[in-house]
């Protein structure tokens, strides 16, 4: 259950950013989450609420944008979406393609703050 520690990192990061800008009140945190990041969205959402408790972000929301997984297929010399997070193969030729091009994102993109 590492979603809780990840949620705590997200809250910390957002707190630092809002303090750095003069103590803005954060309503929502926008996050990009890759399919291959090894993080379960639902677990992260419920952990986020817990992680916010007794911080300046209490009551804020986590908005998750999911990023599909993309691998490079050497046989096709092309980027292909992964079939699933369990099978790193090319969706066109079926060959092994384990070089991850996208899908490992876990990035705080922006904060939604009160003016």
């Amino acid at each position, binding site marked *: *259950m*590492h979603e809780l*520690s*990840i949620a705590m*990192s*997200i809250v*910390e*990061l*957002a707190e630092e*950013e809002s303090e750095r*800008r003069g103590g*803005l009140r954060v*309503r*929502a945190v*926008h*996050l990009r989450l890759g399919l*291959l*990041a*090894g*993080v379960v969205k639902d677990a992260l959402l419920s952990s986020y609420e817990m992680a916010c408790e007794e911080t300046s972000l209490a009551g804020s929301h986590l908005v998750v944008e999911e990023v599909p997984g993309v691998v490079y297929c050497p046989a096709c010399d092309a980027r292909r979406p992964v079939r699933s*997070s*369990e*099978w*790193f*193969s090319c969706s066109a030729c079926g060959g*092994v393609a*384990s070089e*991850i091009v996208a899908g490992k994102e*876990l*990035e*705080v*993109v*922006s*904060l*939604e*703050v*009160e*003016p």
Partner: protein
Amino acid sequence: MSPGTRIIEVRQNVFKQNDLVARALRERFRDAGVFVVSMVSSPGSGKTTLLEKTLTRLQPQFRVAALVGDLATENDAVRLARSHARVKQITTGTLCHLEAAMVQQALEGWDLHDLDFLFIENVGNLVCPSSYDLGEDLRLVLMSVTEGEDKPLKYPTIFNSADVAILTKMDLAAAAEFDSQAAMHSIEAVRPGMVIMSVSAKSGAGLDDYLEFFRSCRAASHRAPARADAARRA
């Protein structure tokens, strides 16, 4: 976006803080001449037994130490102390993985120049440790023959984040009807070209090659020559 709010751009990786600490650790390890190997696996795949053998067998030639992560208890550190290597337990409480800051903290007061190899045994878990860089030079993922050949397909992220796969408990392979070819095929599917080694800590099979691999990796990393030469320098 809700009314009455505005957006400020941040664009920051959530693992940034851990990655920064890991980078600093990696530099410290390199400067001190210590080669660092981390081990991940599911619980019960034989990390501690293999580590005990590793520490014991490397010791005549190298100065070795280990950090071991566990949710609770110091049993592993007690077991590893039998190797007479320097061992420290990191008890993580409820946290299911080690983070770079925990490694940094555990090493407080250690002079890394006194070491040639440092091993870090992560908490037994095939999911959580994959995202946390610990500043190691080499990450091993262990898989025992009793776990099923398709384990890499079930936990691709951790196999993809590791450098070397070690098949453990090979002495039980026949009893478990372990299919080596199928296991290697699974590993190859999630991480083509991955170095794969088969060992039995109990019988000692495969350990010579396994230990030689560390020696050659350490040599290739341009760390200072080990023990004898280090003693001469000092």
